[in-house]
Every structure is written in C-alpha cells, then in structure tokens.
C-alpha cells in the first residue's frame, strides 16, 4: 500500500502483466510509459522491457490501435496509450474491426487487447479539440468492445489488470482531469470487474449517477448535499458497456429520483442511457440531467468554466429534483 497517482497505478498493473507475459507489448506516442511516486521505484516500461516490446513511432494513432489489434490477432496481449489528440483517429478500426471481428469470425478471433484512450484534461484555455469530453458516448455505442471509465487510482489499477486479463478488446477511457488524483493503492495485483457500477454513498432521497472525469465534482456535491441533510445514493458508473442496469434500477426503485451528471455533450451522453434503462424498469420516478451543453468547449476560461458541469451545478440540480 502506498499513495499513488492514477497513472502510477495504471502502469503498476501493466508492469505486473508484462512481467508475467514476455510477449505482451505496449505502444505509445508522446506519453512515455513512465511514472513515479514517493517511496516507490520509478516505473519505466520502455527501459524495463526494451524497444522491441515497448515502442513509439510517428503521429499515427490509427496505426497504434491497429498495431495492438493485429498483435492480439497474432496471439499476443497488447495495450496502446492513445493521446487525447488522437482518440478519434483510431475510432474506425476499433468500431469496425476490434468490435466486430470476434462475432464475424464465429468466435475465432483472439483479441486480448486494451485501447487506453486518453481523454483531455478539460483544461480551460485549450479550446475545442484540446478540452472536449465526448468520446465516452462514441466508444460506448460500439458493439463487441467493453468500454470502461475508471475514476479513482484504485479502480484504475484494478480495471487495467482486469482489462489486460480479459480476452475481449477493452476501451479503457482515461479522463485526463484525474491525472492529479492521488490515493492509497494496494501494491499487489488485483482486478476490478469490468461490468459493475460502484455505489459510492447510499441514501434514499436521490440517486446521482456520474462517471470518469466528472466523479470528483459529483462526490464534492454529494458531501455538500449530505451536510444539508439529503440522503444521497451516489453511483460511479465505471462501466459504460456493458452497463450495470441492475445497480441503477435497484437504486432508483428506492429513491424515485435520478440525476445524471456528465462532462460529455448533453445529447446522447451516458446519462441518457442511464435514464432510459431506469425509465424502462421503474415507474413514477423523476429525472434530470446535468451535462456539458451541445457546444464545443471554448478557449476562454470564463466561458468554459461556466459551461462545464461542477459540484455547484450538481447541488442545484439535486435540490430542484428533491425539493
């Protein structure tokens, strides 16, 4: 047990698997697989495993994703870290090939691969392409890949270990805004399921469902609301595909109020799916969504910070729903 950042936790899981499996590869671009944390050895996959297994080449994210897919088809475990700028450059090959090859081959294709898709850190000032948060929906709609979006270093490690061990292709979304999160994370290798939501707090007044980069603000809002006496059941979705309908439905059956929070654009944000699944199964509940408007993120911090969902927005929306 030691305090670890999100990426340290991820690389620890990867390092463990790469030591177990001498064939496993890692493809990166501009983010070298290097992480450090006080009191623990620096992890440097490139140095440890050499440039035959761990390599970067040029700016071609489609190649990166295709490379790990081809490695998987050849029987090797493989992971690629796609930088956020290129996280849609590789969309087609994941959607049309990774997602379909097992089914199209009648089960023959082997694809023990992980696409670690970095999302932007939603940094104010970066604008449009460098501060959006939208790929959760794109990747969650694909059939045949599992799509997850951990929100804590502990989940990050357990879900990366699970993703590598899973014989299915996994889109592992990494919300860059969580880069600075640090918490105690076990040193041993462990797995966290790729199909279960996490109930972060329990309560009977309202269900709040968030995921990924939005979770810190959701938890902040939860604390504020709890202090104000509201009994909040806060759920971290974690797995977008397959989605854990049971946990969601069970909660809203109890609370009859569902608030979803997304950093993704409103239209067809993961919260829409959450609401639809619940609405198909629960009657008489009330619903509300907090999400990024259907607008690209502007550079100006004044505009951007006003548009991006935060704890205050969540508190306000929860009050409207419960009040």
């Amino acid at each position, binding site marked *: 047990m030691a305090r670890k950042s999100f990426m340290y936790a991820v690389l620890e899981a990867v390092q463990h698997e790469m030591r177990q499996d001498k064939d496993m590869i890692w493809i990166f671009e501009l983010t070298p697989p290097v992480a450090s944390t006080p009191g623990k050895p620096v992890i440097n996959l490139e140095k440890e495993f050499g440039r035959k297994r761990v390599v970067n080449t040029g700016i071609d994210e489609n190649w990166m994703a295709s490379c790990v897919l081809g*490695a998987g088809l050849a029987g090797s475990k493989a992971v690629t870290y796609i930088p956020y700028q290129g996280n849609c450059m590789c969309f087609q090959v994941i959607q049309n090939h990774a997602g379909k090859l097992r089914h199209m081959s009648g089960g023959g294709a082997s694809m023990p691969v992980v696409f670690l898709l970095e999302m932007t850190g939603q940094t104010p000032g970066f604008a449009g392409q460098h501060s959006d948060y939208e790929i959760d929906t794109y990747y969650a709609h694909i059939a045949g890949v599992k799509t997850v979006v951990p929100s804590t270093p502990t989940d990050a490690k357990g879900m990366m270990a699970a993703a590598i061990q899973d014989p299915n292709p996994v889109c592992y979304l990494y919300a860059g805004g969580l880069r600075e999160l640090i918490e105690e994370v076990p040193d041993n290798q462990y797995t966290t399921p790729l199909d279960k939501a996490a109930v972060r707090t329990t309560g009977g007044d309202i269900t709040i469902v968030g995921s990924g980069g939005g979770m810190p603000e959701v938890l902040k809002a939860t604390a504020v609301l709890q202090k104000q006496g509201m009994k909040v059941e806060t759920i971290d979705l974690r797995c977008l595909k397959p989605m854990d309908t049971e946990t969601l439905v069970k909660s809203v059956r109890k609370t009859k109020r569902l608030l979803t929070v997304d950093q993704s654009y409103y239209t067809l944000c993961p919260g829409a799916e959450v609401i639809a699944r619940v609405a198909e199964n629960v009657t008489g509940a009330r619903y509300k969504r907090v999400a990024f408007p259907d607008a690209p993120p502007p550079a100006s911090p004044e505009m951007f910070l006003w548009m991006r969902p935060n704890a205050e927005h969540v508190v306000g929306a929860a009050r409207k729903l419960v009040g």
Partner: protein
Amino acid sequence: MTQTQSTEAARAPAKNDSIHSESRRTFMKLAAGAGAAVSVTSKLAWANGEIGFWAKDLPSDKLTEMFNTIVRIRWYERTCVDKMITDPKYRGYNHFYPGQEAVAVGVCAALNNKGPFNELDLVYSTHRPSGHAIAKGADLKKMAAEYEFRATGLNGGYAGEMHISDKSCGFIGADGMIGPGHVIATGSAFAFRARGSKQVSVVFGGDGTYATPHFHGALNNAALLQLPFIYVLENNLYHQYAHYSYSCPMKDIASAAKTYGIAGVVVDGQDVFQVYNAAKTAVDRARAGEGPTLIEAKTYRYYNHWGAPGAKPGQLGAFGYDPLAISSFRPEREVRAWMARDPVDICRDTLITWGVFDRAKADAIEAAAKKEAIEAFEWADKQPFCKPEDGLKNVFVEGAVPARQFG
C-alpha cells in the same frame, strides 16, 4: 519481375526445397534455344535469368501441389458462379477471384501454413478472399457452407464470404473494408518481432488500397520498425469500376516502396512461379529481420467486381455491360487479352515443360479439383441453418448479450 530496390540479394534456397534444379535449368535452356517450346512460350513469362528463380528448385510434389491449388481455387469459384446463376435458392453473394489464382498460390506456397498457431505465418485477406483462403489451407466444404450461411460453415454462419477466417491454417481472414487490414497486419508483424518469432505477416490487397490513408501507415511503420511484413498488392487494374489510374498517379504502385526505403517488386501475377520467387525472397528477408516488402502483382479478374453479371453457366469469365458499373466499364477485349494469359495454363504448361507431370496427369488433377468443388457445394446445401438466437453469442468470449429487439 522488376526490382525497384537494390537491397535484393541472392540467397541460397532452403535445403528441403532444393532438388532437381540442375536438370530443370538445363532443360529450360535447351527448350528455349531449340525453339521446342514455341507453342507455349507465348503463355510463359520467363524469369530474369535463373538467379533467384527459387520455384525451379522446388520438389516436384510441391510444384504439383501448387498446380493443384490453382485448379482447386479455379473450380471452387467456377462452381460457385454456376450455382449463383443457376440455383435461385443460393443465398451467397460473392467477389470472384478467377484470373488471379497465381498470386494467392505463389505467395502462400512460400509461407508456413501448418503447425501450431504460434508458428504459422499469418495471412490477412480482402473482400475477395476465396483464393487466399484456399491457398492458405482452408477447407472447401466448410467454406462453401459458410458462403451459404450454414451453422457448420467455417465460421458458423457469422461470416459469409466477406469475413471468412480460419485460424487453424493462419488465415486471419477476409475483411470487407479497404485499408484497415493492412495496418492491422503490421501489428501481427510487430508482435512477431517483439516475441522473437520467425513468423511473417502477409496482407493481400487490391490496387484500390493504394489510395487509402492506411497504405502510408502500414508501409511507413513497417519500414521504421523493420517488421516481418509483406504487402501483396494485387493490381487487377480496377477498383470496383474505376481504373486504377483514377486513384494512383504512377504506373507501378510498387515504386512507392522507394520512399520508405524498403524493397518493392513488380511481378507478373499470372505466373505462379514468378510470384513464388518474389514471395520467397520477401519471406526470407522478413525472417532474417531485414524488413518489409511491397510486392505488386499485375493481374486481372475475369468476373466483375461483385456477383456474376454477364457470366454464363459452364463458361469461364463474364462479359458485357455490368449494370452496376453505371458510368464506366472495362473493355471486353481487355478481358479476353488477359484470359489468353491464364494462370492455370501458364502453371500447367510450365510444369509440363519442366517435366514435372504430363498433360494427362494435369487433366486428372483438374478433374479431381472440379469434383471436390462440386461435392463441397453439395455438402454445403445439406448443412443446417443457424439458430436465430446464436446471433447474440460471440459478441464477447463469454456468454451472450441480451435480446433488445422485442422491447
């Protein structure tokens, strides 16, 4: 065969493959010199001398097997064409390969197609996969059943023609998209290099693949990392109904190899032995860690892009206007000219010239191939249909996804 690259080096043929070469070479020279082979030379494409003419050093049974594979492809396809245009119950749609058989067979003859999966060379194929699949070793019966979407088909009826695959012989499979497969194939090559395996990764693709962004991604990264990767570009002059000059500014697509500093070869795609020579050189290079090769095989398809418009039962090739072509179409004279350099004829006549077999033996092989193909489609017709609910399986390795169509 034009070498656009100077990295080409004569390499000694593998031991188990070198046999009888001396006598064949001598005969070849005699025949050519005496004009004895005049009646067949017009159908024979001659190598650049004897250097690097690996095919000539192959044992007779291997050469015979190459001819056998060519005619098995030919008759599988012809039987399928006939079925498509005569049997209204046939449900398959197909992209036919006849005319190009020498490419698939010449390349796959240079690969390792048997053994445990982690020793097999891998082949990535296209929307026109029959030839590649058969040359790599897929079973005709199971293929025919798959083309008719039967539960016992090669892929349980999930694939159809455009996505057949067979891991047991390293046939990673067909892919309906143009471009992505090439890049994915470099990933297998990367895995081979990473784990120190001697396997090679081969992708087939048409002239249509040149214009895709993927062409650059595949070759550039394969070159940078010196991957054991072979890009076999079957230039049959057309992608759908457009001549390749619509999408490619140069005559020989293989010349693009130069930019990447890799070996690029243009080869006569109608002559299986020329193709074999180029493929063997490329495979040796890849196994030796010397990087990728781009092989452009000049070839032609006797049928139209898709299905069998213009084909007649029992007759090879399709002629006349294809209603799908709409605004452009290839000239019939062009089809006939290419058919005059038929890969079956060239292979048969070469092997007769080399004294590997006589015409009677060749005819017997072809008759057996025809019979096998007919039986395969007959077998397929008797196979069970798929169970509807199995469509929910094989999405993930485990279990099945829920039905959602009923609300």
